[in-house]
């Protein structure tokens, strides 16, 4: 006679993550949050330079149809020493491109530990939590934490003015015989 087990042990939930480097520090991001990975070189000509003193971590804006995607320098965002960036993560469900030094590897995390309440400043918005991989503690970034609503509004205003000026310049060029 065989008994049907009453309870099944639930499989451990895991999450695919990408480990990336910025200014020689390692961070993790959920691979679901990354829509696209592009080389910095591929953006030459596809981005517009933006110089908004209130958001110095953003120097470029990409036009994606009607949407503006702001490229955040990860090193500046985290208050690290600026370093030569090579890749951009275009993040899903946000208007953020993340400028990073490089990808370390893709892996799986089985456990995300909440940030201790002792951490009580911006890092609470920066990170979803911490994970332990191969006896190393890695912060897992929060994709929504790179730009505030206020920063996005400010950048939209600056980028809008830039794009209008650019459009005006190009129409002037066309009128010149």
């Amino acid at each position, binding site marked *: 006679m065989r008994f049907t087990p009453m309870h099944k042990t639930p499989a451990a*939930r*895991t*999450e695919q993550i990408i480990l990336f480097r910025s200014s020689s*520090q390692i*961070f993790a991001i*959920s691979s679901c949050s990354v829509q696209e990975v592009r080389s910095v070189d591929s953006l030459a000509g596809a981005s517009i330079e933006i110089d908004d003193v209130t958001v110095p971590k953003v120097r470029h804006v990409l036009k994606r149809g009607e949407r503006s995607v702001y490229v955040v320098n990860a090193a500046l965002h*985290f*208050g*690290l020493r600026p370093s030569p960036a090579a890749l951009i993560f275009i993040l899903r469900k946000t208007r953020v491109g993340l400028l990073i030094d490089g990808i370390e590897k893709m892996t799986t*995390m*089985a*456990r*995300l*530990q*909440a940030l*201790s*309440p*002792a*951490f*009580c*400043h*911006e*890092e*609470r*918005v*920066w990170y*979803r*939590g*911490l*994970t*332990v991989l191969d*006896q*190393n*503690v*890695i*912060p897992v970034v*929060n994709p*929504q*934490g790179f730009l*505030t*609503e*206020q*920063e996005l509004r400010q950048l939209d205003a600056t980028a809008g003015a830039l794009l209008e000026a650019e459009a005006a310049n190009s129409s002037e060029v066309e009128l010149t015989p």
Partner: protein
Amino acid sequence: MSWAEQLDARSCVLLRLGDRRFALAADQVSELVAPSRMFRFAHRTPGIDGVILRRGRVVPVCDVAEKLTGKRLTSRRYYLVSRRRNEGTTDWIALPVSGDCELIQADLTPAGPSDSPHVAAWLSHAGEVIEVLNLGALTPGMEPVDSGEGRAPIAEAHA
């Protein structure tokens, strides 16, 4: 009634920070461990040096010596892993100490209104008057957290 008000003989752990000694209520002390590898990552909370891994738990390391003695510790002999309780939750924090720790039984005198917030009580031991520390006032994160205006809420952990 806070524990500092329940004045009777209590177990306390004496800890050394440089040339001074302080005390913590023994029920706030989880363990005393040898310094292990410290992990550092970007953050903005002053007073936190990094984190250590202890029994699978990530424990922030908070050097309170500078606040208490005016000098950072030049040598770290142990980490005193302490428990902090706040609104029904418990978290752990590792305090670097520079010498051996000692478990004693002592009568406590409550802190007065003129005492610093980090003083929970006083005790007398071996001819020395020693501050019993209030970890909540000494270490960051025991006050309500300001998550910042216009921030999206932090997504819950999936894993």
